[in-house]
């Protein structure tokens, strides 16, 4: 594939080209996709080194599937997010950090204070710490929707659930985040608007 065409080519076209031996296509895909899944993995795992390992493994699986990629069946980004989500889930469960979806009740207002000890840096860190307190599936859905910018149907495909379930997860996740962060907003400079 000509170099000037790489930037305009779809993810799928690049993947097929790589599967046919075009290594420049792999470079274009790496530049395009690695930052996206790193953003997700780093936020879900809250561990940069672990997130990078997950990203490398997810991309490796992408390289391996390239020759067998069935065009038109799925979006490359959806497939890659799905692999990344599953790898992150495996890591969280193996390390005992996973929080079961239904095991944790939504926090009472007074529980916001519990977060304060975890929040010690800036606003992004505050959100990160609050995200860590969410049940696993809520955290995944909120990150994919509000930080990665995926649509609800895309998230449904990534998480292998229905769109209504995505809406429910993100709504409950946001409610929980609001309560966790309620006591921090003024302190973090957002005022009380």
């Amino acid at each position, binding site marked *: 594939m000509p170099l000037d065409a790489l930037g305009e080519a779809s993810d799928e076209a690049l993947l097929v080209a790589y599967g046919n031996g075009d290594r420049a296509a*792999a470079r274009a895909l790496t530049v395009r996709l*690695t930052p996206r899944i*790193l953003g997700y993995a780093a936020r879900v795992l809250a561990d940069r080194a672990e997130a990078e390992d997950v*990203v*490398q493994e997810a991309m*490796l699986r992408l*390289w391996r599937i390239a020759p067998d990629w069935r065009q038109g069946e799925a979006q490359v980004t959806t497939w890659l997010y799905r692999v990344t989500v599953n790898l992150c889930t495996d890591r969280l469960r193996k390390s005992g950090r996973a929080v079961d979806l239904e095991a944790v009740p939504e926090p009472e207002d007074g529980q916001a204070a519990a977060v304060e000890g975890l929040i010690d840096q*800036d606003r992004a860190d505050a959100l990160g710490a609050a995200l860590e307190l969410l049940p696993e599936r809520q955290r995944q859905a909120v990150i994919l929707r509000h930080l990665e910018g995926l649509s609800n149907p895309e998230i449904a495909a990534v998480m292998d659930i229905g769109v209504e379930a995505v809406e429910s997860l993100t709504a409950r996740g946001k409610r929980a985040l609001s309560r966790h962060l309620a006591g921090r907003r003024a302190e973090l400079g957002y005022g009380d*608007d």
Partner: protein
Amino acid sequence: MTERDPLDAFFDEARANRPTPGADLMARVLADADAVADGREARATRAATPARRRPAQMLKALGGWPALAGLAATTATGLWIGFALPELPTSLGLASGYDLSDLAPGYGSLSAFGG
């Protein structure tokens, strides 16, 4: 004007502070891509080596499977003749004045061996 969700400010901040991959991670990912491509090309090369193609080429040179079947039948017939050694004719039966050995020198010794 609609009221903005207070959480949006946190999301905006987080998106602005998106983790970015360092050169080391990009190099690791690209090295994997090259290694997978190398492995694929090596397998394709091995699959096309002459050593693997030789039996097929020999068969083709002989004329394919039909020719091989004919060759096998001929071999079996030869073996059968060798073991059964049917009775050999001693003359052509057309002209009593001639013996097969007159027409095919060396036949006499074969005939004697069979008789």
